[in-house]
Each structure stands twice: as structure tokens, then as C-alpha cells.
């Protein structure tokens, strides 16, 4: 099993703490069902404050990897530590709480509740996470904090005040999603191809804004994509095929 770390020139930032945000050790997981799919990851680390791009073609096990990372599924073998906690040891509901405490998640698209206001969309995780609510409250009232975050991500004031999520462009929606992922300063931002629906210019601008804000709260960012041209934006690039073995069919 080969572990390959492609480190870019600007890897270790000075502020990064030694503790790993994420660490996988000898993880093995099989999807149950008629067409089993097994993913094995010997070791994987995400350092605190690191911006990591995980490259992988579709079908290479990205979804399974993300499910393991976010604690949606629990490995059959091995151990996954998130900020020093073994998620497998937590109960289902506790994992849900743990997830919202430590992760901000951005989907490929359709991230928002279409009928809710932008502010409500951004504040959503704070309703489930006391830690993040307390973090946000330290900076002011929740509405103000949410608004400030949206402004920082480049949405203008009239849009924030008057729009429903459904009336936004895709680029604007992804910014709101980023604001939601970042609010309350979770340690890890997981982005699942968040820019795939954006054009090049918007993509660059989006990533720049995302990173500015993630650095502000010292969050690690792990972004999954199949687009190698994104490499320049990240501290480190990892190919899923280099860290993981995926196998169709039952494992012998």
C-alpha cells in the first residue's frame, strides 16, 4: 500500500498546529448490499489549517471516503480520528452532533433550503451545534455574524436582505453555502466539488474567498474534485488512488 503526499512549495504554514485535524489508520469499509464495494485506506492525515485537494475520478470511492470522513458510516476495521476523537466510538446521535460541531460541509450544488432566507440558511448549523453557536456569539449577535460572513464572501447587502435562496445564481448559492460551512468556526471544511458548476473566473474568486475565511478561523479545508487544474490553490494535493485501494466485489 502506497501512501503518496504531493506537497506543494507552501506546505506547512506557521500557524498550523501539530495536531492532525483528521487521521485515518488501517481503515477498511465495505458497503453492504448486492454489489459490495470495499475501500481500504492505510493512512491519511489532514493537518490543522491545511488546504488539501483530494483528486479522484468518479467511481474511485470519493463518496465513500467522504462518508467515512464525516462519520456517516463507520469503518469495519481501523480507526478514524477527527480532532483527536474516534468517531466510531460515538453513538449515532452523538456522531450527528459531533459532525456539526467540527465540520462545515459544502455540496456540489443545491446546498440551500430554497424557501428560507439567506441568513436562516447560514445560521442553520448553529441550531444544532452549541459549540459553534457560542463561537459565533463571541463575535456579536447571530444575524450580524451571518451577515458579516456573507458580506465577506462577496454577496452584497441588498441581495442578503431581500433574497430567498432559490432566486440566487449558482455562484451566489455556493457562497452562501460556504458562509454556512464557515460560521461558528468548525475545524474542518469539507467541500465536495463545490465549484463544478462555476466558470473559471468565479471558481478562482470563490476559492480565494473561501480560503481567506478559513484561514481567519484556522480551519482545515479538504476539497474533493476530479479537476487537476485546481492544484495551484492548495497546500497539498492527494490522489485518492494513491492512498486508497478500492475493490468491487466481496473481499476475500
Amino acid at each position, binding site marked *: 500500500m502506497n501512501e503518496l503526499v504531493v506537497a506543494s512549495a507552501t506546505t506547512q504554514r506557521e500557524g498550523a498546529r501539530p495536531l492532525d485535524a483528521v487521521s485515518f489508520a488501517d481503515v477498511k469499509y465495505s458497503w453492504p448490499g448486492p454489489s459490495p464495494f470495499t475501500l481500504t485506506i492505510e493512512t491519511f492525515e489532514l493537518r490543522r489549517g491545511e488546504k488539501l485537494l483530494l483528486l479522484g475520478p468518479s467511481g474511485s470511492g470519493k*463518496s465513500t471516503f*467522504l*462518508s467515512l470522513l*464525516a462519520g*456517516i*458510516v463507520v469503518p469495519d476495521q481501523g480507526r478514524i480520528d477527527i480532532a483527536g476523537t474516534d468517531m466510531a466510538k460515538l453513538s*449515532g*446521535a452523538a456522531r*450527528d*452532533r459531533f*459532525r*456539526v*460541531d467540527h465540520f462545515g*460541509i459544502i*455540496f*456540489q450544488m*443545491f*446546498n*440551500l*433550503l*430554497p*424557501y*428560507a432566507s439567506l441568513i*436562516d440558511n447560514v*445560521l*442553520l*448549523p448553529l*441550531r*444544532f*451545534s452549541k459549540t459553534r453557536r457560542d463561537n459565533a456569539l463571541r463575535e456579536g449577535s447571530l444575524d450580524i455574524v451571518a451577515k458579516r460572513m456573507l458580506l465577506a464572501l462577496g454577496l452584497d447587502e441588498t441581495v442578503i436582505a431581500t433574497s430567498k435562496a432559490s432566486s440566487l445564481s449558482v455562484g451566489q448559492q455556493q457562497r452562501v453555502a460556504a458562509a*454556512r460551512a464557515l460560521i461558528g468556526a468548525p475545524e474542518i471544511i469539507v467541500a*465536495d466539488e463545490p465549484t463544478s458548476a462555476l466558470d473559471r473566473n468565479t471558481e478562482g474568486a470563490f476559492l480565494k474567498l473561501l480560503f481567506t475565511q478559513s484561514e481567519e478561523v484556522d480551519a482545515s479545508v479538504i476539497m474533493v474534485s476530479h479537476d487537476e487544474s485546481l492544484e495551484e490553490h492548495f497546500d497539498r494535493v492527494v490522489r485518492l488512488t494513491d492512498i486508497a485501494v478500492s475493490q468491487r466485489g466481496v473481499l476475500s
Partner: protein
Amino acid sequence: MMIVRLALQSLLNRWVTALLTVLAIAMSVMLLLGVEKVRTGARESFADTISGTDLIVGARSGSLNLLLYSVFRIGNATNNVTWKSYQDIASMPEVSWIVPMSLGDSHHGFRVLGTNTDYFSHYKFRHGQSMTFASGGPFKDLFDAVIGADVAEQLGYKVGDKIVVAHGVGSISFVEHADKPFRVSGILAKTGTPIDRTVHVSLEAIEAIHIDWQNGAPVPGESISADQVRQMNLTPRAITAALVGLKSKLATFKVQRRINDYQEEPLSAIMPGVALQELWGLVGTAETALSVVSAMVVATALLGMVTMILTTLNERRREMAILRSVGATPATVLGLLAAEGGLLTLAGVVLGTVGLYAGLWLAQPYIDHTYGLSLAIDPPRPDEWLKLVSIVVAGFFAGLLPALRAYRLSLADGMMVRI
């Protein structure tokens, strides 16, 4: 609080389907409560067809038969009561008043009742209400008639019109008392009882139109003119039935027994309330059927709601994945959907109840006037409250069905669903 707000916003986002669902439930609740109201209204109207009368006396027969022909003008008497028996009963010390009734003739299918003017003051209906005249007044002349509201309306009669009474009770009669026409002296206000469909004349008039008849047919060559008959003794030989009021209700059983044991001829005395209950027991099966049908309509509406929630579930997988990604547990998702079912049902029940009362308030005067059915506008009774609450609870549990499915989906999808 925000979660509740989001649930509401989510519903508002699907307001057309949600509204239709609420309307369907509201309609079913209206039907359920409405049937209940009509049921009780009908039962009360029915029980109130006659009140204030302690005993009905007729020739020996079953109590239902006597009630049917004397009060509801259905069917015929088996036999008559002689005038002497009538006078004997009238002279009993316990008897406060007695009104004779003589049936057997008709006018265009409406029964003709021979009685005296006491009838108008003693016959009570609907909690002791008395008859009132819409126009004109009680009969003064021998050939005066007082007609019920339906008779006047259907035949277009007004005070002063001449009418001819036919022998027998069919709607088409070949034997008429054409030689002795009556004048409409009064029209009664609508009562919602068989009175509306009755032509009232005096007992003497009944005697007068039959004076030259024998064995149910006019005797040829022996016709007596209307003017001649006024000079004759018109004391009736027999009547069909009599309504009796007692001085004290305590004496009811005693008087009833004495009449039933009357030696001169076989008589029956019945208590109208008891006979009415007996009769309602026969009709009552229909009301049970109505209740069952309306309960089934409610079940159908709830099924519709479940279908609605289930069909929107797929579109909402994304919504649930978002909620899951921000920390909502599958249990929260379950709760949200179950709450949605409960909420929709609650809205439907409230709307239906309000709608029913609004409808009752609007339609009550019309229904009362047209059908003589007085529908009470009173707050839901305990058993009705129980029904309403049960519907909401059932709605909540019906909502659990799609919720459980959503729960399973959301466990399987996690938050990585790509749609």
C-alpha cells in the same frame, strides 16, 4: 424555534399541495361534524313533532300505528272511537283537555283533519311551541278550512280560496265532496312537522260532508245541500283519535291503564314520547350508516395526505440531506415529517370546524324554513371534541408513515445524496 419556522416555510413552499390537502381534510371534517349535527337535529326535530300531549287515544292497535296515523298522517286507523267513549275520556277527572281528530279525507294528496279550534292551542311541537297563523285565523264558519304551510305553498292557496275535499286519502280521488266546498280561513306558519301538510277543518264539517253518504259513497237522490246541512245536528258519531292533556303528568300511567281497560270498546292510549323513541329506533340504522360513511371519508382524506407527503418526499431528499449535513439527526427529520402530518391535519380540522359553523350559521334559517329541521349551533359536544382530537392524532400517526420512509432514506443517503 427556527426548525419549526423552517418546517412551516417548507410547507408554504409547497402551499398548493398543502392547501389542497388541508381542504380535503377540512371537507371531510365538515362532513363528519355536519352529519352529526343533522343527525341530532333530525332526532330532535323528530322527537319534537309533538309535545305537550300526554296521551294519544285511538282504537285498539299497536302504538306505532296509532302514532303514525295520528301524528305523522301515515297509514290509516284500524277502527274508530265512538263519540261516547270520547266524552267518557273527556269527563275523567284527571283530564285537563282533549282534542278530537277525525281523519279519512284528503285534498290533492294532503290529509284532511277534522278537529276543533282547541287543536291550534293545545297541539305543541318543538319544545312546546304553538302553531301560529301566517295569515287569516282559525275556522269560524262550518265550511272554513285552515291549511298548513306546505299545502298553501304547493297548491298556491291564499286566504279566501275555495277548495273541495275528496273522500279517501289517495292523491287522485274520484269521489269528491264537490257539493260542499270549503273556504280557506287561515294559513299556518311553517312548523317542520306533518301539520304543514294537513288541511284542518272542523269536526262538524267532517260530519256535514258525509251526512248524505252511506258506506263510503253518496246515496243517490238523497243529496243534502250545504245550506240545509247547517240546520242539522252535526254531532259526530265517531272520531279517529284524540289528543289528551292531563292535569298532572303523574297520572299518565293511571289514565293510560284506565283507557286501555275501557269496557265499552277496545281502545289504546299511548305516550307519544315513548312511541316516538320506538319509531326512531327503526329509522336509527340509517344514521349509523351515515356516520360510518363520513368516518370513511375522513380516513380517505388522511390517506390523501399520506400520499401527498410521500410524493413530495423524493424532491425533499435534498432538503433532508442539507438538514443532516448541518447536524440534524435522522430523528429530527422523522419528527419534522410527522409534525407536518399532524400540522396539516390540525389545520384541516380547525378549518373544517370553522367552516361547518360558518356554514351552519349561514344555512340554518334556510334549512329550518325549508325542511323544518332545526340545527343547533352549539359548541362541539365532548364526543365531538374526542372525534376531532382523534383525527389530529390519526393525522400525526399517518404522517409517521412517510416520516419513517424519510428516516430510512436519510440514514441511507446520509448527506451525500446527489440529485
